[in-house]
């Protein structure tokens, strides 16, 4: 009976790959996410609503469209992909890095939303006070705005991580479904459902996916609550 629960090597590989892909996606996109969230929360510039639309696009586009657009842009023959390959010998195509890019793009709207809300909730009067104490706008950002919105940033990062783990459509369109390289958890589940006798493997991975997602949601909620408490007492 217990044998049923034992993961097969390729299932372990899919899980490990998913964790690596999701962690990379979140860590690399975090600075961009914070910058975009700050620009949207505080910026008064031309093109702000265009930026807002661009950030949220992956949320509403069919994932297969996002994946295809990534392929056109970052594929070996795409403008950015060709540049990266010619100059740095770096490629996203059919590599786990491409899966991370797809996951990062798909999770970006969630990341930016959470961070933006927490930045908007920071009391601007505290930032003004920091300014009178000699803090330049950059110092104000790093010593007041960022620490006060930290729980929201963590909540957004955890949520984005969960989303990145579950990303399927854009990933499989962009980098296909290669075991050990781009076969993430959802891709592996999909593969299992396509072959006879794959039910047990699919079910094991489904349980893992559910567990990871529930845990991430709870953790994200926890950080969001801490943010509320922090802001109440400001």
């Amino acid at each position, binding site marked *: 009976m217990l044998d049923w629960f034992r993961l097969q090597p390729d299932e372990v590989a899919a899980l490990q790959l998913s964790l690596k892909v999701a962690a990379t996606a979140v860590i690399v996109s975090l600075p961009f996410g914070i910058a975009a969230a700050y620009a949207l929360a505080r910026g008064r510039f031309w093109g702000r609503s265009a930026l807002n639309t661009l950030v949220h696009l992956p949320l509403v586009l069919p994932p297969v469209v996002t994946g295809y657009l990534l392929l056109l842009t970052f594929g070996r023959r795409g403008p950015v992909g060709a540049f990266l390959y010619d100059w740095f010998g770096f490629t996203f195509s059919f590599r786990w890095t491409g899966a991370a890019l797809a996951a990062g793009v798909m999770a970006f709207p969630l990341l930016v939303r959470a961070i933006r809300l927490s930045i908007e909730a920071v009391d601007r*009067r505290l930032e003004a006070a920091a300014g009178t*104490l*000699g*803090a330049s706008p950059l110092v104000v950002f790093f010593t007041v705005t960022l620490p006060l919105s930290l729980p929201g940033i963590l909540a957004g990062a955890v949520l984005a991580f969960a989303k990145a783990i579950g990303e399927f459509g854009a990933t499989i369109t962009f980098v296909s479904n290669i075991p050990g390289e781009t076969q993430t958890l959802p891709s592996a589940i999909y593969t299992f459902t396509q072959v006879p006798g794959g039910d047990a493997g699919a079910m094991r991975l489904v349980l893992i996916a559910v567990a990871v997602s529930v845990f991430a949601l709870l953790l994200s909620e926890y950080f969001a609550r801490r943010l509320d408490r922090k802001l109440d007492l400001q």
Partner: protein
Amino acid sequence: MIEIALYQRLGEFTLDASFESDAQVTALSGSSGAGKTTILNSIAGLIRSERGKIVVSGRVLVDTEKGVYVPRHKRRIGYVFQDARLFPHLSVERNLKYGRWLSGSTAPLEPVVELLGIGHLLKRSPRLLSGGEAQRVAIGRALLADPALLLLDEPLSALDQPRREEILPFLEALPKKTGVPILYVSHARDEIARLAGKIVWLENGRVVGEDVTGK
């Protein structure tokens, strides 16, 4: 020491005020809506006036005619807000050190801490302070940033009478012990009488009178 001339329209309200003062403590007084806080915010660089000139201890901070505008973080204007505005994510001690760190000053904490009687609060979070304690910490934080002028915006208005009596002696001792000139906004006559060397009366955005108390 300070020379202020400001003109600004804010909807229905027009601020058109100018005054000078050499006093150690200058009080700005008048009913609410007279433009007192607007003047303080302009001096601190939190709002930008349409026309005007602000000179503090010989240093021109704003001169719209000559296109001079020093950004707030380079003005060295200490500002104690009505609502203290301590940083909730830093301890009292780190709040105190915040402006000192940025100014590059090496002044020790102890004299200020002793003057304001906040030694026992250093390790605490600002969330756990009473209104009077928070206000004293805010004064200390502004002082340690080595300001050329200290702005106090009704620092006692949020406090009840016993608390006010607790802080007033500290405020009285400030100018003598620190040498930093103070611009003090209040509409409480007793406070003004105890603290100010010069009083500027404001009404509807205009200066309607000045008194020198000779302090």
